[in-house]
């Protein structure tokens, strides 16, 4: 991964992603936090492109920005009287302390390990290889994931039905 462009891309993307993630934490408005979250998703998609995972990058934008961020926006807008000031709970300080300690442990482990890396880009990373792997080696988790998605769909719809709609569909 040589080249001036790759290094520049990495540092710019790292700056964007981490600043946006910090923005999710410190912004005083919940909707601003959601917009920063969307920026983080796009930054992580950029990282995926840098790591030769173009299919996953596009899937990340389609699923996270196109679907999950919209879901979060809907949830924020369907709860109008909830507090939208993005404040912290009572357990904020111990939580952040725990996160800092965990970060210290992670960073120590990362920089202390002798990673055995390869030199060039691996061979079989294209979308067709991913499709073959998903349908031959990993077909059972694939089918289970589809069942999981159906269960989530049914569950989400059932959780948000109003009592009249439930009474209408009940087996009398």
């Amino acid at each position, binding site marked *: 991964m040589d*080249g*001036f*462009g790759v290094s*520049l891309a990495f540092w710019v993307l790292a700056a964007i992603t981490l600043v946006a993630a910090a923005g999710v934490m410190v912004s005083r408005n919940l*909707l*601003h936090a959601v*917009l920063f979250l*969307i920026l983080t998703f796009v930054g992580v*998609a950029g990282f995926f492109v840098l790591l030769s995972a*173009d*299919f996953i990058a*596009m*899937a990340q*934008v*389609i699923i996270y*920005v*196109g*679907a999950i*961020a*919209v879901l979060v*926006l*809907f949830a924020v*807008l369907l709860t109008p009287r909830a507090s939208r000031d993005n404040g912290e709970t009572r357990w904020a300080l111990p939580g952040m302390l725990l996160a800092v300690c965990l970060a210290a442990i992670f960073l120590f482990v990362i920089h202390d390990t002798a990673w055995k890396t390869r030199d060039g880009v691996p061979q079989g990373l*294209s*979308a067709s290889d991913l499709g073959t792997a998903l349908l031959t080696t990993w077909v059972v988790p694939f089918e289970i994931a589809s069942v999981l998605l159906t269960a989530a769909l049914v569950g989400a719809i059932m959780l948000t039905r*109003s009592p*009249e*709609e439930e009474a*209408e569909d009940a087996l009398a």
Partner: protein
Amino acid sequence: MTPFLVSDKWYDIRDLGNLSRALLDAADKVLPGGVVYVLAALIGFVASFLLFVLPSQLIIGVYGERRIIGRMQSRLGPNRVGPFGLLQPIADAIKLIQKEALTPAQADRVVMYIAPIIFVMPAVLLWAVIPFGENMVIADIPVSLMYFLAVSALPVIATFMAGWSSNNKYSLFGAMRIVSMAISYESPLVLALLGAVVMSGTISLSGMVAWADQYTIWMVFVQPLALVIYFICVSAELNRTPVDIAEAESEIVAGYLTEYSGMKWGLFYGMDIGYALAASGFAATVFLGGWTLFGLEKWVPGWMIFIGKTHLFYFLFIWTRGTLPRLRADQLMAFAWKFLLPLGVFNLLIVSTERMLWAEQDYAKGLIYVFALVNIVLSVGLVYAWARFNGYRPERSPTRPRLVKQAGGYIPVGERP
């Protein structure tokens, strides 16, 4: 891919990439480091957007669309400014630039400023992956089709940002309606494009054009249903009539655009047309065969063929806009979830079966024509049968006005029998 008569000379206009490549090679010797990439991006932007898109967007989009819709509605379009009204886009641009772009007092200024910028992004970004001709792609990534889907998720966020930051109830209503409509129509869109991917075996747009060239058939003949579903879903993503509950002028003032004036509104309006052109170019590449025309591209430059096909598809957009009335929001949702999504699944089923049969015959060329014929008949039958199953029947002879309840419209929960 079959070799074409495109040469390597820089003056060969059948492959405009030659000129830019010669320029970039000369620049690479002079400039330091990786600065040539910036120059390449600039040339790509100038070549694709400023030379191809913007003139056709201004002329065909702003002027041509209003004129054609006017003629369809038995009235003249704009014909005052300049000869035959050809300077209308320039007059519009000047008017919008000199207008004061008001911001409401309590509105969120930063978000309101950024929303048109994010709305512009898909229309410009999409031209980076569309092949204008052989070797005339700015970024030939192997997953171009998914790039289109990824980029089409951005206007949804921009619409929501515009609606929420205006601090206006009607804007918020409009924004929520559009966001729910856009995400409803994303699922059938993905399924329709998935049918095209399964048939050609590649996700990249250059691969699609190569497939159309290798088997000398356009994807639209093999899968007409996919094109119809794509057309309806992209109309919904672009907020065009008949699915434009976004700018329903008679319903909610101007929806999410209520508080936008001046060039901010001009950006939304211009990029409506720009994104429609980009989606037409995308459809021309995937479904209509791209820059190939059954061998004609040896004499006619490929990019001319491509531009012709793009505008042909854009004329379809203009045609439906001038002809069809607007659908109601709940009718739209029912249409997407109950009608288009199962149709997309049926299409995928049929296409997968045919692809498997085709692979067993070692991709014989004649078999694809048989599949095209079978698919056309099946698509027509499927649409008709599924519409009847869903209760959509054509009105034979409407005699008197019908009320919403009798017409089968939405009945609120408390009033149902």
